[in-house]
């Protein structure tokens, strides 16, 4: 196959010789295939939508934009739908999916627990509280997104400092602190829901279910570079992440300072999660499921799990979001779809492959 030969050439250039490193070559090959899948899903997703536009017109519009050509040959309506609605939404879904998935992989490694998800330290409840404040008291808390982000970060900082005793942050205390902070913010969200009027309540509930309804280029510009930077840093720390997942004492004997490195990776993973959540609401399951799926495919080595996770998360959210906006006349909140599709998949993983992912 032509594609296979090309990928093999690229892998050669990366310095992996053919006669050895066989399994690592295979892993890189799989990552390239995942990249292809994401692109394919994006290409198909772009042509689908409530408003019917012919396939060639979609690509023509896209081509003109990407080559900086003259856009006036496309009708304004079509241009808006394709370039200002569908395309940013697609990029946003890819960014958020990737962000949540790598954050999940990082948290699972650092906490040495395969059942941890990115919301474990209270990011989601903090963000929910901030968003609910923004919805309810719009005159004071002027931006839902900014306050969701502020409170998401605040929740994690709070949990982290709660768990820090004498310069150490034991994992069990950290998880417990996350649960505590999460439940406090959940209670506060419940209180805000209780005092909210009907339309505000409806808005809060919708926000909590997550969605890309209002995706715009502004969101993309805010989120995507952050996620890419976070991804690159975390990827570069992937080997250290492997060492951290062996435990604190092991990490120290191998020359990786657990306190310093844990703080760095948790901070980055939290930042990308908080950014995503504050823009699109709470989307469950991606961060829990994708790390498992990539470990199943590629083994636990984070040097491969992180990029695979990013691509799988991106693919999954892209598919879910396309379904969310196309299967019925009105949009379904994406959180519902990710959970409905995700739960049976994880169930399958646990029943059939539990041993190979959980050891």
């Amino acid at each position, binding site marked *: 196959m032509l594609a296979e030969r090309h990928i093999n050439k690229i892998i050669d250039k990366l310095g992996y010789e053919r006669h050895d490193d066989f*399994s690592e070559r295979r892993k890189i090959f799989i990552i390239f295939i995942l990249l292809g899948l994401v692109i394919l899903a994006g290409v198909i997703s772009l042509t689908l939508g409530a408003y019917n536009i012919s396939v060639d017109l979609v690509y023509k519009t896209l081509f003109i934009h990407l080559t900086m050509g003259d856009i006036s040959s496309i009708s304004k309506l079509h241009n808006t739908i394709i370039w200002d609605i569908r395309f940013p939404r697609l990029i946003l879904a890819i960014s958020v999916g990737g962000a949540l998935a790598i954050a999940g992989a990082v948290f699972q*490694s650092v906490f*040495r*627990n*395969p059942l941890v998800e990115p919301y474990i330290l209270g990011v989601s409840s903090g963000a929910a509280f901030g968003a609910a404040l923004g919805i309810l008291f719009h005159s004071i808390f002027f931006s839902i997104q900014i306050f969701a982000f502020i409170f998401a970060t605040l929740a994690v900082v709070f949990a982290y400092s709660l768990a820090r005793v004498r310069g150490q942050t034991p994992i069990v205390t950290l998880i417990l602190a996350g649960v505590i902070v999460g439940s406090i913010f959940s209670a506060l969200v419940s209180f805000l829901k209780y005092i909210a009027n009907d339309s505000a309540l409806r808005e809060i509930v919708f926000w909590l279910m997550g969605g890309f309804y209002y995706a715009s280029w502004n969101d993309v510009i805010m989120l995507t570079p952050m996620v890419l930077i976070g991804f690159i840093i975390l990827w*570069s720390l992937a*080997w*250290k992440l*492997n*060492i951290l*997942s*062996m*435990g604190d*004492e*092991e990490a*120290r*004997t*191998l*020359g*990786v*300072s657990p306190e310093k490195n844990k703080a760095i990776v948790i901070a980055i993973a939290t930042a990308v999660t908080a950014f995503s959540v504050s823009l699109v609401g709470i989307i469950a399951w991606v961060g829990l499921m994708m790390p498992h799926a990539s*470990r199943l495919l590629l*083994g*636990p*080595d984070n*040097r491969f799990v992180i990029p695979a996770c990013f691509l799988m998360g991106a693919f999954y959210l892209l598919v879910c979001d396309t379904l969310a906006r196309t299967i019925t006349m009105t949009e379904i909140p994406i959180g519902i779809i990710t959970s409905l599709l995700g739960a049976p998949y994880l169930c399958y993983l646990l029943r059939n492959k539990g*041993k*190979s*992912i*959980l*050891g």
Partner: protein
Amino acid sequence: MLHISDLSFRYTQKPILSDVSFSVEPGQLCGLFGPNGSGKTTLFKCCLRFLPIEQGSIRMNSVDVSSRSVEELAKTVAYVPQEHKPPFPYLSREVVLMGRTPHIKGFFGIKRQDKQIARDAMDQLNILDIADEPYNQLSGGQRQMVLMARAIAQDTPLLFLDEPTSALDFQNQMKIWGLMEDIVAEGKTILACSHDPNHVAWFCDKVIVISNHGIVGEGMPDETINQDILDRIYHNTCSVCSNSGVPMVMPKKVALRMENY
């Protein structure tokens, strides 16, 4: 190579080690010997700065460990812990490769050379057949061999081994002791704790016996593993015999049987 002076450590109120002083010279295979709960592992953990010491000083290569960063320390000393099981199914060769971490620089710094060193370490221990098996699904003894290979791959002048043979069969125990003798022959230094007085007496260059928070004996193995010290730490349960010059520690009952024979 390793100098410890007046080391004391306590867990809140309970003293574990008090005023422990000894030193290990370069190229020595030093055995750390003592009953359960006498503080052998604690001593290792103090030296590796996992635990904050109450007083005293620990010097490796004539540098105080408290002034060393985690990265520097990992280039000086490798540690084989007693038992641990990571939650993720890393392959054995990946675990051994982790031993190269202190020497890895830069972004994606794992080089072919590091992989080769890891491979050689596994080859040296004859465990290449489990290289592609998930580490956390191996038996306790196999895991111990993998950790030993990791310590060799880490390539440090000093090695701390916490009961490296506790889960091994007889053949592998001898393999590990033989390997330790090879390692010190290269000029490296080993501090290994063991529960088998015979192993310590047969293979070590020096023995340190700790009990009751302190050192009760120190010196050449055939002088240190004697009736008096064993009676003190094991409460009259064993006797030291000599079989044409080779010391042999046996349970008292068995030794009696020999005399009656």
